[in-house]
C-alpha cells in the first residue's frame, strides 16, 4: 500500500541545514499495523506528515496505492488525503466551536456526502465508539479519553484505507490509553491499515511491526507476530 524509497527531507534555517529524513525506505502492506518509534528529533513526525501528505519530501519516491505522489501539488494531495487517510493526534485537535456530531461530520462535508447519508454514517460511527450519548456536547465538556474517541470517530467516518496516529495515547491516562489502543486494534482487524508514532513500548506492542528510527534512518525493525 505504501512504499517509500530513499526519502529525504531537510530543514534549513539561515545557517544550519538539518537532515530530518536521510534516504529512508519503508514499505507498509495493506492491513498492517505499524508502530514507529525513536527518540525526539529522529524524524518520526516528519515521516508521518509526509505519509499523510501534509508535507512534501525533498527527494526520493513515495508510492501510495500504486501511485507516485511525491510530486503532487497541494490540491491533488488534499484530494487524495480526504478520501483515503484519517488522522488521530496526540492533542485530539477537535474544533471547539463544533459539537461532537458536527466534528465527526466535517470530513463527510468536505468529501461532498449528502446530508441524510451523513447523519446515518455519523450516528453509526458514534454508536460504534460508544459516544452516542455525547453527540450534542462540545469537546471541552468531554474527558480526554472521550475526546480521543471522538477524534478516532472523525478519522474513520470516511472509511479511510489508512489511519495515521501521532502518539494517540500521549495525553491520556493508562486506562483511557488502553481503550484507545483496543479501538485501533479493532479497526485494524477490520482491514484498516494503521501507522502509529509512539514513545510507548506498551502501545507499540499492539502493532504487528515496530520501525525504529534514529537520525532519519531505520535502525531496526521488530516483527511482533
Amino acid at each position, binding site marked *: 500500500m505504501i512504499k517509500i524509497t530513499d526519502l529525504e527531507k531537510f530543514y534549513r534555517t539561515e545557517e544550519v541545514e538539518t537532515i530530518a529524513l536521510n534516504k529512508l525506505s519503508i514499505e507498509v502492506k495493506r492491513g498492517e499495523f505499524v508502530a514507529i518509534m525513536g527518540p525526539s528529533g529522529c524524524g518520526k*513526525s516528519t515521516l508521518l*506528515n509526509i505519509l*499523510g501528505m*501534509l*508535507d512534501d519530501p525533498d527527494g526520493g519516491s513515495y508510492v501510495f496505492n500504486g501511485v507516485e505522489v511525491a510530486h503532487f501539488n497541494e*490540491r491533488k494531495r*488534499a*484530494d487524495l*488525503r*480526504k*478520501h483515503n487517510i484519517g*488522522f488521530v*493526534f496526540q*492533542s485530539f*485537535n*477537535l*474544533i*471547539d*466551536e*463544533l459539537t461532537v456530531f*458536527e466534528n465527526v461530520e*466535517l*470530513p463527510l*462535508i*468536505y*468529501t461532498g456526502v449528502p446530508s441524510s447519508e451523513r447523519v446515518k454514517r455519523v450516528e453509526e460511527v458514534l454508536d460504534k465508539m460508544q459516544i452516542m450519548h455525547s453527540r450534542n456536547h462540545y469537546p471541552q465538556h468531554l474527558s480526554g479519553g472521550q475526546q480521543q474517541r471522538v477524534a478516532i470517530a*472523525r478519522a474513520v467516518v470516511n472509511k479511510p484505507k489508512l489511519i495515521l496516529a501521532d502518539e494517540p495515547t500521549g495525553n491520556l491516562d493508562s486506562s483511557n490509553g488502553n481503550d484507545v489502543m483496543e479501538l485501533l486494534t479493532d479497526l485494524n482487524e477490520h482491514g484498516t491499515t494503521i501507522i502509529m508514532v509512539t514513545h510507548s513500548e506498551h502501545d507499540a506492542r499492539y502493532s504487528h511491526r515496530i520501525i525504529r528510527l534514529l537520525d532519519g534512518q531505520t535502525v531496526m525493525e521488530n516483527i511482533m507476530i
Partner: protein
Amino acid sequence: MFRNYVKTAFRSLTKNKAFTAINILGLALGLATCLLIVLYVADELSYDRYNTKADRIYRVNEDLKLGNNNALYAVCMPPLAQTLKNDFPEVQDAVRLKQAGGFHVKKGNESILEYGTVFADPSLFNVFTLPMIYGNPATALKDPNSVVLTERTAKKYFNTTNVVGRILKVNDGQLLNITGVIKDIPKQSHFNFDFFVSMSSWADSKLNQWLRSDYNTYVLFKKGADHQAFEKKLPAFLNKYSSGEMQANLHLTMDAFEKSGSYFRLNLTPLLDIHLHSNRDGELSHNGTVQYVYIFSAIAIFILLIACVNFMNLSTARSSNRAREVGVRKVLGSSRKYLIAQFLTESVLVTLAAASVAFIAAIILLPVFNHLSGKELVINAQTLTWLIPVLLAIIIVVGCLAGSYPAFFLSAFQPIGVLNGKIASGFKGGRLRSLLVVFQFSISIFLIIGTIVIYNQLNYIQTKNLGYNRDQVLVIDKAFELGSHAKTFKQQVKQLPGVVNATLTGYLPTSQMRSTTIFFGDATADQKKSIFPQSWNVDEDYLSTLGMKITAGRNFSNQMPTDSTGLIINETAAKFLGFKDPLNKILYRNTDGNRDHGKRYHIIGVVKDFNFSSLRENISPVVLLLNEDTGYLSVKVSASNIPALIARIKRKWESFTPIHFEYSFMDQDFDAAYRSEQRTGTIFLIFTVLAIIIACLGLFGLAAYAAEQRTKEIGIRKVLGASVALIAGTLSKDFIKLVLISIAVSTPIAWYLMNKWLQDFAYRITIQWWVLVLAGFAALSIAIVTVSFQSIKAALANPVKSLRSE
C-alpha cells in the same frame, strides 16, 4: 456547506464576545456615519429631480465684462424667453420667473408679510413639474392679477385647499384672483415659492430691453435637441437683438465692444446643476456647494476604511486562536477556497449585524444630524426603496473588503505548522498590519488638523475687524412700512436715551439688499474707464452709526445742498479708478440709457474698506450716495438695559403703524450669514471625533493582539526580572513608532490641502506650526492611553501562566 459556515461563524463570534463587540461597534459607528452622509449627499444630489423633464431644462445665464468689472448673472433680459422660443425650433418652451419681494397678504384683519412670492409666465407648468390639484394649468397664469397658491398656503389662508375662484387681498387693496392650487414644492428645489403671480401683472415684464437683466429664464428643449449646438448660436442671436441698444448707450458695435476686452454673453446651466454648481447674482435661493458634497463623501469613505482596517486587524489578531481550527479543517480535507468562503461569510455576518445596529442608530441620530446640518432628512418608505439596496451593497463590499485580509491570511496557514503549535511565532505578516495602522492614524491626524484649521478660520472671520462695528446695532425690519413717516420715526428714536445714533437704509453690510450701477470716468461714457460698483443709497448718519472710518474727505452733510450729487467711495473703488487723490474727482452716471445724458457726481470722501459679502470674496468697489432708502432702521445703542430700550422703540413704532414690530441684532445677522460654514465646522468636528474613536478601537484590539502574541516573551522577561513599567514600555514602543510615522505622513498632506481650502477665502489665517504639533500630540496621547491599557494588563499577568500556555 453554507449552513456550516454560518454555524461556525456564529459560534466563533459568540465565543469571543469582547472581540466581536469591538468589531461590531467599530463597524456600526462607521456605517452609521456613512449612512447619515449618504442621506445628506443623496439629498444634495436630488435637487430639482422632481421635474420629469429635468434633463431637458436649462437656465439661461448672462456673463458680463465691462472694462475691469466682471459680473455673472442668473438673470436675463425681459424679452429673452419669448424670443428664444420664437427663433429656435429646438426650444419647446421657455419660462421666466421674477422674484416679487415682500407681499402683504390679508388674512381677516391681519396683514402677513410673505416673501415666497414670484411672478411667472403661463408656461411655468409646461416646463416645471408642479402638479396642480385645482385649476387649469394651461390658463392659470394667463390673465393679470391671477395667482396660483401652494397647498399649504391655501390651507394657511382659507383652511381648505379648494380655493380656486376666491380672492386674495394683497398690499394696499390689490385683489388677486386664485386660479390654481398646486402641491407644495419639494424641499429639494432650487426655488421654493408659495405664491405664483401671473407675469402679466408685472408691467416691466413687457419691456423690450436687451441691456437689463432681472428675469430668471428657463428653456425646455425638445427631445433629442443638442443644447451645445444651441449654445453656439447664442452670440449671433444676442448680437442681433442687443446691438441697437449697445449702439445707443455706448456708441459701440458688439464687435468693437468685444475687441475692447469686454464681453456680454449668454450661456446655459443645466437645471440639475443649479443647486450644487451655480453661485451667480440673482439666484432664486441660497444654493449648496458641491465642495461639501465631495468633502463629506470623502469623510464617509475614510471612516468606513478605518472601520474596515479595524476589522482586518482584529480578525488577524485572533488568528492564533483560529489557527488550529484552520489546520484541522485542512487536514480533514477542506480546500483553501472553502476556508476563504468561511471567513468571508463570517465577516459579512459581522457587517450585517453592524449594519443593523448602524441603521437603528442612524434613525435615532437623524434629528440631531438634521439640527446640525440644517437639513430635513427623513427615512421613509420612499427613501428605503433606494437605501436598502445601497445598504446591502455596502454590507457586501465592506464585508468582503474587511474580511479579505483575514480570509486570505488565515487560510494560508500550513496545517502541520499550526497543529504542532508553532503558529505563535510562525507568522510575521506585521508589515501590512503596521501599514494599516499608519493609514488609520494618518487619516485621524489629517482630520484633527482639518478641524482645528476650520475652527480657527471661522473664528477669524467672526472676530476680524470688518471695517464696521456690528456690536449693539439693532436692526428694525420693514422700516419702509412707515412710508413718509420713516424719517420722523428715526428722529424720534434718536432722541431716546440709550440710543447713540440711527441710520435709515436697506443697504447694510449684513443685509441682502444690493444694487449696482455703472459709473464712467469721463463724459464720453468710455467703457474702459467705467466702474461697476455697489451703489448704495444711505443717509448722513450711516457711517457713524456703523462705525465706519473716513480716510479722506468728509461725511455727507445735510448742510451741503451739493451733497445730493456727492459720492463717498471705498478704498477699493479709489484704487480701481486709479485715483491718487480721489477727492473732488468727477464720475458720470448714465440714468436713462442715453450716454449723452450722463449725470455728474463728485467724490467728497473715501471710506475705509468694509466687508459686506462673504469673507470668501475680496472687497469690491462701493459707492455711497446720499439718497433716501427706508429698508431698515439701524440703531446703535449704548444702553445697559437693552430690553427696556427695545420696548420703548417698539412703543414708538406702534404709534406709527399697526404692522408687527420686528428686529434683529446685526451681529446675529452676521452669524446667520456664516451659519453654513459653522455647520460644516461642527459636522467636521463630530466626524473627526468618530474617526478617532474608531481608530482607537482598532488600536486597542491590536495592542491586545500584540500582547497575546508576545505572551511567552513577556513571561520570560518577567521571570528574568523585568518590571511592569519596562514591559509595558516595550510593548507600547512599537505602536508609538507607527503613530510617529503617521504624523510624518499626514502632516504635510494636511498642511497642503488645508492651505488649498483656505485659498477660497479672501481673508484667511495662516496655519500655525502649533496646530500641526497639537494634532500630532493629541493623536500620540490618545494612542498611548489606548495601548498602555493592554500593555499594562499583559505585563501584570502571571508569568507562570503565560509560559505554560506555550
